[in-house]
């Protein structure tokens, strides 16, 4: 029992969970609205796109890299998809749009993957560059501007609800989008992949030590290449979901969201140096960011102080996990000493 408790306290998730709980309670006290059914559904719905993005960003960070291109990648692929369908006056359902977007995502992800895995270039440099390339393609080749009208199938799917939550007091209602199922599916898929496949363990192994992974027999180049393709696909799905939910395709709206996503992943205890982190922590961190971003008015933070508050939260959150790591380092060395004495 004591052992299990110790294991729990040495992990990051309980802390982030406590912070999360504290924030929720603060919002509840300030607004009386947090735990209302419609607000919870609102949070879940707001979590879909950042959550999907975070899954991709998380896997890249675990592998020891960092990807800042996923919003640009997603924007290019959803924009190209929507425009293509509009140009062909597409009237069908939502499956084809997703297949096309996933195809674009895989292609663009392969572009990143090629430079990162085969040419072994630093991930930050590559993704900074590809991010510009993707934006340029969108603005130059596709002449991008807001597409206020999207294909009917996408529009209808975006408004489709699993269920509608109603606040018994105010009568306000909120839809739980069908897209939430996609997010859940991706989450389960990523969990299975990272935990139960050699490919997923390979991502962790590469993040821990690329040289060791190579020597152990992991196909490092291939693993990384496939990883970036997969991340491109996930980001594109997230992008298209956002288009459907927003009922319009705006080419630049998503740009810049990488910072908060990466902050959420790191907040959840994922080591920025790679190799360490859990999907649970990553989701908790992202959820915390999503909740805070969507509750500042509920808390009553003045608009002009908004970014200060989010920034402070990120510093405190990452500070806590950094302190954790430092603390662990200390107990480790003292433990080592004790063993030496005991021998």
């Amino acid at each position: 029992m004591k052992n299990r408790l110790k294991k729990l306290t040495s992990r990051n998730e309980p802390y982030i969970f406590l912070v999360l709980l504290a924030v929720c309670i603060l919002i509840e006290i300030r607004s009386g609205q947090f735990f209302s059914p419609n607000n919870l559904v609102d949070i879940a719905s707001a979590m879909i796109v950042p959550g999907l993005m975070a899954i991709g960003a998380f896997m890249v960070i675990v592998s020891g890299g960092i990807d800042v291109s996923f919003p640009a990648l997603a924007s290019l692929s959803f924009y190209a998809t929507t425009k293509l369908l509009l140009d062909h006056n597409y009237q069908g359902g939502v499956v084809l749009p997703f297949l096309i977007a996933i195809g674009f995502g895989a292609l663009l992800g392969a572009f990143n993957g090629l430079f990162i895995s085969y040419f072994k270039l630093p991930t930050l440099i590559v993704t900074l560059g590809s991010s510009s390339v993707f934006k340029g393609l969108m603005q130059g080749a596709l002449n991008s501007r807001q597409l206020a009208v999207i294909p009917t199938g996408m529009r209808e799917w975006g408004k489709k609800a699993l269920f509608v939550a109603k606040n018994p007091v105010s009568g306000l209602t909120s839809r739980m989008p069908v897209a939430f199922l996609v997010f859940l599916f991706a989450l389960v898929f990523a969990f299975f992949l990272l935990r139960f496949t050699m490919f997923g363990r390979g991502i962790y192994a590469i993040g821990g030590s690329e040289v060791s992974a190579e020597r152990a027999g992991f196909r490092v180049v291939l693993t990384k290449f496939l990883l970036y393709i997969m991340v491109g696909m996930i980001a594109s799905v997230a992008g298209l979901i956002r288009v459907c939910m927003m009922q319009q395709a705006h080419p630049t709206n998503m740009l810049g969201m990488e910072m908060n996503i990466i902050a959420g992943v790191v907040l959840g205890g994922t080591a920025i140096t790679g190799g360490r982190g859990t999907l649970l922590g990553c989701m908790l961190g992202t959820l915390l960011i999503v909740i805070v971003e969507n509750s500042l008015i509920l808390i009553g933070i003045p608009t002009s102080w908004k970014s200060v508050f989010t920034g402070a939260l990120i510093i405190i959150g990452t500070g806590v996990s950094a302190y954790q790591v430092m603390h662990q380092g200390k107990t480790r060395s003292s433990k080592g000493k004790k063993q030496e004495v005991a021998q």
Partner: protein
Amino acid sequence: MGESLLKAVNIYKSFVGVEALKNVTFEIKPGEIHCLAGENGSGKSTLIKIISGVYTPDAGYMEFEGKRFSKITPIDAIKNGIQVIYQDFSIFPNLTVMENLAFNSELADRRKLVNHKRMRQIAEEAIAKIDFKVDLDAIVGNLSVAEKQMIAISRALIFNTKLIIMDEPTTALTRREVSNLFKIILRLKEMGIAILFVSHKLNEVFEISENFTILRSGERVASGSTSDLDAKKFTYYMTGREFQVHRFEYEKVKEEPIFSVDKIGIEGSFSNISFDVHSGEIVGITGLLDSGRTELGLALFGIKPIEEGEIKMRGKRIKLTNPRRAIHNKIGYLPEDRLSEGLFLSQSIGDNIVISEIDNLSKAFGILDRKQRRDEIKQWVKNLAIATPNPANACQTLSGGNQQRVVLAKWLACDLDLLILNGPTVGVDIGSKHDIHSILQDLAKRGMGLIIISDDLPEVLENCSRILVLKNGQVVGDMLASESDEKKILSYMM
């Protein structure tokens, strides 16, 4: 002795025109413990990489159990039962012991899915082979160096292993961990596994190996049975030079000590320690890793200020609350891990030498006197025979021994009264070690007081006039070097 397990015959290998190996022949039999020795750059690592298939030789061939190969791949090497344990152990610090143990064989079997049950079984079998007790769910990064090494060894045994190559396996181990490792090596020998042990440490070579091969500048200079080897020959083969080992002799010049500590202590590290250092004297402090020796060194330089007792410099009481104060009082410190603590590796050699006396070199308004700085650097590079074409080169271009000399120069430039050295020759090859020892003795003769903290007993005996033995933070032995030997010191230490 029967058939040889592995034979590498007339191997040549060069890299962009530089010959790393010249006509080297090497042989090892099943169950043999063989030591491959040589200084840095002698070609040891190249030979290992050729045997394990990482490099292809330019000429020559290899034989595994009589089968002849002109070149092999790493996979061939593993299939033929060769496993290499690198200095970094090739582990995943972020993963569990179980995964670290099981991954290699799972990958070799081309598994796509993770089966925790099967992996646990593989891991359990692996550690059972060497009776290694460890929590399979522990994260490897949290384990000690010795435990990581055991994981690497256990992992190597999963395959049908016939030869394990260990690259400098004792570097980061304590004395007790080393003897534990040797026990395991003997056990592997009983299992019929041959061990190729790469080292440049004299005592280890004698203690564990049956046969040896010594490389120097890419050539095999000697090989044979360890019983035919002695310290003097070993050193000669390694360096190509003959060294006169002379014990340091101290003559008391002045009764008055330059430095004395009285009943000093830090809660949890050491307590009630008193001793004096006279001008021209070298005091050795030895003890096990947890004896408090390192903490004592840090305290004397003000990094970890003392909590009780007092320190006097030339009879005057001083308070060492930080390293700047210690430097001000003409005390210098050469850290244990010279790479991380003592040098700015990416900065130039020259800058590293003058960094500590930066105050002395500044003119008004903190502007550096460039000419004086240049002269200063030139002088030390010459005095300490630092092998560099240009002092403006970065420190990391130097070999370990030369780096150590730079650190020495850095402190000597400050015109010190007392120099504290912690493990001055850890990781330094034999030639440089001798050079450093003679520099230290020379410094003492010029009137400086020195404290050498080291668990290298021959080093302490050879260079110190007086030896203090620490155990659990207490002085348990205080003797003159001339009246003691290794056995006596060890009996106090353990």
